[in-house]
């Protein structure tokens, strides 16, 4: 099937809202969010804790199925999990009983791909994320950053139309995070993988994205969209550049208001 990539976005989020019932009444986590992602685009959603960005991600990924509005993949409405929408989580999710290779081959094995074929594919993907030579290592023998790369390779194994990543590097230290950012840039360059990244790290968002969406604190709305026009390929060396710093400052100015609102509300709630 061929799509005119400019008329039909790969992923289209249309007027999506999510309300939660709590003891104190209804909380609106996500409020009328609309967003189009074109084939090959890398988009980051950034926002303070509690802005509903993970909720949004879980709705797109199909883990939350009850919400208002609609989500379209290649123009077709979807609800619930689709193998075409790949998810990478913040939490540890590699299977400790499988080697790196068999972890990456997992989705292919579930899909009935024969052993030799899926191993060839898994080798390629491990190479892509820079883990050649670690095929037969178990996750416990690898670092947190390496395990997270296995999780990314595993998700890519099914060749998803769109890759969703929910703060995949949040548990890692800053240096590792920057270097892994380089890796993600390289992967992006090679695969032209359409990606939606959820993060609360501004530098990460600027380094990786074509567009950065800033979300408001509860209820979660899209406050502003910042186009990042830094030349590609980018690397972590850019983090020190003036242009980079200007983007970070611009985003922080917006984010700061939301984050302090969130902080105030959290502290007020704690005081009660």
């Amino acid at each position, binding site marked *: 099937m061929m799509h005119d990539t400019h008329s039909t976005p790969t992923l289209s989020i249309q007027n999506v809202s999510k309300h939660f019932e709590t003891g104190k009444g209804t909380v609106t986590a996500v409020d009328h969010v609309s967003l189009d992602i074109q084939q090959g685009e890398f988009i980051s959603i950034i926002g303070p804790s509690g802005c509903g960005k993970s909720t949004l991600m879980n709705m797109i990924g199909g883990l939350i199925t009850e919400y208002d509005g609609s989500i379209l993949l290649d123009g077709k409405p979807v609800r619930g999990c689709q193998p075409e929408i790949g*998810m990478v989580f913040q939490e540890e999710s590699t299977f400790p009983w499988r080697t790196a290779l068999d972890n990456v081959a997992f989705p292919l094995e579930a899909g009935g791909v024969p052993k030799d074929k899926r191993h060839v594919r898994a080798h390629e993907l491990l190479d892509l994320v820079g883990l050649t030579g670690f095929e037969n290592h178990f996750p416990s023998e690898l670092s947190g950053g390496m395990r997270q790369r296995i999780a990314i390779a595993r998700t890519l194994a099914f060749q998803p139309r769109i890759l969703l990543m929910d703060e995949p590097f949040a548990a890692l230290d800053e240096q590792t995070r920057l270097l892994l950012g380089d890796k993600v840039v390289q992967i992006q360059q090679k695969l032209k993988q359409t990606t939606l990244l959820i993060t609360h790290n501004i530098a990460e968002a600027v380094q990786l994205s074509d567009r950065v969406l800033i979300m408001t604190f509860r209820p979660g709305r899209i406050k502003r969209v910042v186009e990042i026009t830094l030349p590609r390929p980018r690397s972590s060396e850019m983090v020190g550049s003036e242009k980079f710093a200007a983007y970070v400052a611009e985003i922080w100015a917006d984010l700061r208001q939301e984050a302090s609102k969130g902080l105030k509300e959290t502290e007020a709630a704690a005081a009660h």
Partner: protein
Amino acid sequence: MALAKQMISRVTLYRISAALFLLTLWEAAGASGLFFKGVLPSTWFIGKSLIRLSGDPIFWGHFSVTLFEILSGFAIGSLVGIIVGLALGMNRYSGQIFEPVIEYLAATPKVVFLPILLILFGIGVGSKISLAALSCFFPMTLSLAAGVRGMNPMFLRVGQTLNLSLAQRIRMIYLPALVPPISTGLRLGFGIATVGALLSEIKLSNKGLGHAAMQAYARFDIPTMMAILIVIFALAGLGNMLIGSIIRLPGPNTRRLTKETS
């Protein structure tokens, strides 16, 4: 390394001397005349009985009956235990409804069910197998239900995002993730399956090692009885060791699993 070796040899040394000490105590108590004559036969006579039994086809008949009862009871009880444990752990409501009942029953000595089992399955191997199965069912079920609940929820999330079927989730996620609780269940289960089979043999039966031991007791052939008991101990111990080593065969996996989840 040298220190480790020294430690091991020291432990072994203590073990051997402890065994020798117990043997001496046994012999001394037997020779002391404090007990009724023949109650504590010399290890020499027990050894002779053992040798005689090893050439006795009737003994081997009893042996194979007991082995069959233990193994089939163990297999049935463990399999059903795995299935029920998975179901209890996977479904919050079934867990909340049935688990308290299972926990109460688990604490009850299973031998109280023997009269029912005798009526249901007769005094042959049926009642023995069913008591063995019933005995090892409980630890497996409870160990597995707890194991499912302790699983990293992200494993299941991954399965969910890939739209795996229930059979795929069980085969590719639940079972491999649950190797540690399953092996615990198997190891605990084998011992008490043995207890279950032998207990019911001793109570009422016409075959098996328990029956043979009771016959020797009735004849007041204490050395033979002791010899049979030794065979039973060896059987239980060997089975336990065997299960332990089989489960540990994919070795690094099991160890890694526990390391990972801790």
